[in-house]
């Protein structure tokens, strides 16, 4: 008798959980699984401009090519650059985002709603025009950045888009500008989950600002920030638009490529579909490895309470 009650209870519980999760997953599986399998097959094939219809499975050849082929620019250099790009961007996005959220979250500040709204503008403006605007701002002769440097600070003009290092810095500056509002909004939301009593108690104990940040704020915004940081990293690693548009498709001389723009060029400029697909799989495994390690270390899949 009592065991059947437990059984019905468990069944109802399972139906409830299933009803909560299933709709989201049905949409996702439908949209992602098919393209994914298609891409795996493509990565094992020799499909390119010469073999567009009569392509065949050639095994892991394309993967071997990615690692061994002498490409211009070199695969390993591009990989290293992509890592630098991702780390620098995420660092500034998170640090600036959390910092501004903390500043905006002070009750004493007036006009918070207005500052909040101005600060999300970089997220709200269409990326395409922003990228082109920044490209204009980095222009050697007409760009406002060089005009400001020379007129206001008396510094020499910088050839932003002509040399590889400066172009890379220019692209990173643009993307930091684009990305900090997103992290700021997430952090602002996360800060609301912290009960005010915790700070009151800490104040009574005479705790320092740094102590409160390290022992109250950061641990309590973690559950919300960790998913945002993980996905932010994945998105930044795979961000094609900004580099492509600001550097005008990898200028100067293909030196600003990231791994995704490399894929794009292989697939859509050189029609090497098999090679591009293999490269995508490699990117996928790099990100999967990163996320698994990061999630395990931060224990993000477990519940807090």
């Amino acid at each position: 008798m009592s065991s059947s009650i437990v059984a019905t209870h468990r069944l109802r519980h399972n139906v409830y959980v299933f009803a909560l999760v299933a709709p989201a997953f049905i949409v996702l599986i439908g949209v992602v699984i098919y393209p994914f399998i298609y891409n795996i097959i493509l990565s094992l094939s020799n499909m390119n401009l010469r073999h567009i219809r009569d392509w065949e499975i050639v095994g892991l050849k394309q993967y071997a090519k990615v690692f061994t082929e002498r490409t211009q620019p070199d695969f390993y250099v591009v990989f290293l650059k992509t890592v630098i790009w991702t780390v620098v961007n995420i660092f500034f996005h998170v640090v600036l985002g959390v910092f501004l959220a903390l500043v905006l979250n002070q009750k004493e500040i007036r006009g918070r709603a207005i500052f909040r709204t101005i600060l999300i503008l970089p997220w709200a403006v269409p990326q395409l025009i922003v990228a082109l605007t920044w490209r204009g701002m980095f222009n050697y002769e007409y760009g406002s950045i060089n005009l400001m440097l020379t007129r206001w600070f008396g510094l020499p003009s910088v050839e932003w888009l002509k040399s590889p290092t400066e172009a890379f810095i220019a692209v990173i500056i643009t993307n930091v500008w684009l990305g900090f509002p997103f992290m700021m909004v997430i952090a602002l939301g996360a800060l609301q989950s912290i009960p005010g009593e915790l700070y009151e108690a800490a104040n009574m104990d005479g705790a320092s600002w740094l102590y409160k940040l390290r022992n109250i704020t950061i641990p309590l915004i973690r559950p919300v920030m960790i998913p945002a940081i993980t996905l932010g990293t994945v998105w930044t690693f795979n961000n094609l638009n900004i580099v492509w548009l600001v550097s005008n498709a990898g200028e100067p001389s293909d030196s600003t490529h990231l791994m995704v723009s490399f894929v794009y060029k292989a697939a859509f400029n050189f029609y090497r579909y098999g090679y591009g697909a293999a490269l995508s799989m490699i990117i996928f495994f790099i990100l999967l490895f990163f996320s698994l390690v990061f999630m395990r270390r931060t224990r993000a899949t477990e519940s807090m309470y």
Partner: protein
Amino acid sequence: MGSNKNPRTILRVVSSYVVLVLFALVALYPVSQIVTISLRPADRLLSTSLEIIPENATLDNYRALFTQRPFSLWLFNSTFISLIVTMTGVVLASTAGYAFSRFSFIGKKFGLLSLLVTQMFPATMLLLPMYIMLVKLHLINSYLGIVIMYSATALPFCIWQMKGYYDTIPRSLEEAGRIDGCNQFQTFYKIILPLASPALVITALFSFMSAWTEYVVAAQILQDTQLWTLPLGLKSFESNMGSEWGLYGAASILVTVPVVVLFLSLGRWLVSGLTLGSVKG
């Protein structure tokens, strides 16, 4: 003004204002450049002037958008699609995120990770198979097709984000609700969901944005110009003959306005700390 304020508080408030004004200027400057472009009479992208309002400023570009281009049609299409995606995102992510936060079930970890996995693939390589699939399902040139695609892009982040936020809400609140006679769904709907309003705002905003400014997927699915969204319309100002920068700039500013309005209206719930007080005692 508060006589009980000590010098350290005043210093903190003043430096906060300095930081906010500085960052506000940094956020505004490139946007002001776009305003300048939109007000310039001829189609020039570059100029050596640092002024925001250019010489011979004109609103012709804005006028042309509505009189010579189907801007209102694009605006309607984009608004419609983005709102549907937002609603789908909020409903599906708030429920799925709750399950991931509160219940243990077989495949929970796998489910959470597989959500992340969907984001790890370079989008460029998914375009071709995605297109083939949508053609087979007859979803090309349909709102349903684009809404499904956008929801699928936005959901993984939204679910994770909701789950993270629910994790910070103490379980004792649900137990209290159950004792007061709410059933399982009522405790979720009446107690937990209002507390998670900051996360719901983030979910809504993120879903809206992933539909509002997306170009690449839209270009594949919406080929009929009657169905075009704003980003597709904007892109049409670019051509080999020389781009219509004035129109482009004006349209970009107008595209930004609804997002700002949305943020202003939702902002109140983003910063409502309802947890405060509810767990006391």
